[in-house]
């Protein structure tokens, strides 16, 4: 096992992504400072026994229990002081939910020349992006009252987008190809 994949944010996209990458011959590191809430179990890979636990630790335990896959879990909040230390590996995958964290990730991966794949979802579950950092533009955040991906209605679409994230990562790790995808509920376009 030589390659390391670091996934930042293991909520909707990130939690499903980890389990989709479980058969890859890579070491997986996950970073998330948040705790699992009951509402998260509607749309994320986290189950009810994980409610109240740190998402990264809960996912670590689930992956080991379900698949015997050991992952490295970090419970830090990514900030300027720790980002350079935490963001290491052969591939960084950004699955965070706020522009500030995305900007920090983008700065560090560009400074260090690390390959980085971003996953992003529209608030209403109508569009998903799997895009390499070279082409990634950070969108402004949704305003107050915007729909969120917490509702279980979007679970299938979240999982589809996570699967394409996993596929893009797989193509890079196995073939060093950088392929991105734009995903709508009816169509997938390679970008």
């Amino acid at each position, binding site marked *: 096992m030589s390659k390391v994949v670091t996934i930042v*944010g*293991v*909520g*909707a*996209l*990130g939690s499903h992504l980890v389990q989709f990458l479980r058969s890859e011959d890579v070491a997986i590191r996950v970073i*998330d400072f*948040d705790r699992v809430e009951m509402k998260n179990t509607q749309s994320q890979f986290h189950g009810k026994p994980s409610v109240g636990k740190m998402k990264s630790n809960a996912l670590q335990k689930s992956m080991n229990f379900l698949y015997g896959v050991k992952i490295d879990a970090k419970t830090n909040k990514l900030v300027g002081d720790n980002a350079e230390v935490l963001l290491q590996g052969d591939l960084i995958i*950004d*699955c*965070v*939910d*706020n*522009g500030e964290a995305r900007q920090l990730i983008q700065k560090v991966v560009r400074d260090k020349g690390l390959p980085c794949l*971003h*996953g*992003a*979802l*529209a*608030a*209403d*579950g*109508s*569009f*998903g*992006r799997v895009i390499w950092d070279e*082409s990634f*533009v950070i*969108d*402004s*955040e*949704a305003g107050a009252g915007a729909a*969120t*991906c917490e509702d279980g209605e979007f679970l299938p679409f979240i999982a589809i987008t996570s699967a394409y994230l996993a596929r893009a990562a797989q193509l890079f790790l196995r073939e060093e190809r950088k*392929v991105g995808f*734009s995903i*709508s*509920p*009816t*169509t997938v*376009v*390679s*970008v």
Partner: protein
Amino acid sequence: MDELQNTEARVNVTYGGQNGDLPDPVFFDSNDGDVKGWITEAVRNGSIPGIPADAGADFTDFVVDRFAATEGRPYNLIQLRPKTPFGE
């Protein structure tokens, strides 16, 4: 759509969870305002296959992305899409 010139692009839009292409290519360096205008008109008229006509279609808050041709996708692509602020 016939084979595109390298100065042209296919225009793809996602709206209301549906996805489709403008029937005709545009210049790859068309400005964002023009692209949004053409798509707004096309969606309102129902002239994008796959997207039902919507007289109230509004793309003000949408984002224009541009992707140069690649080996796997041998044509330039302009994409109009909703903002995607969420991941987690």
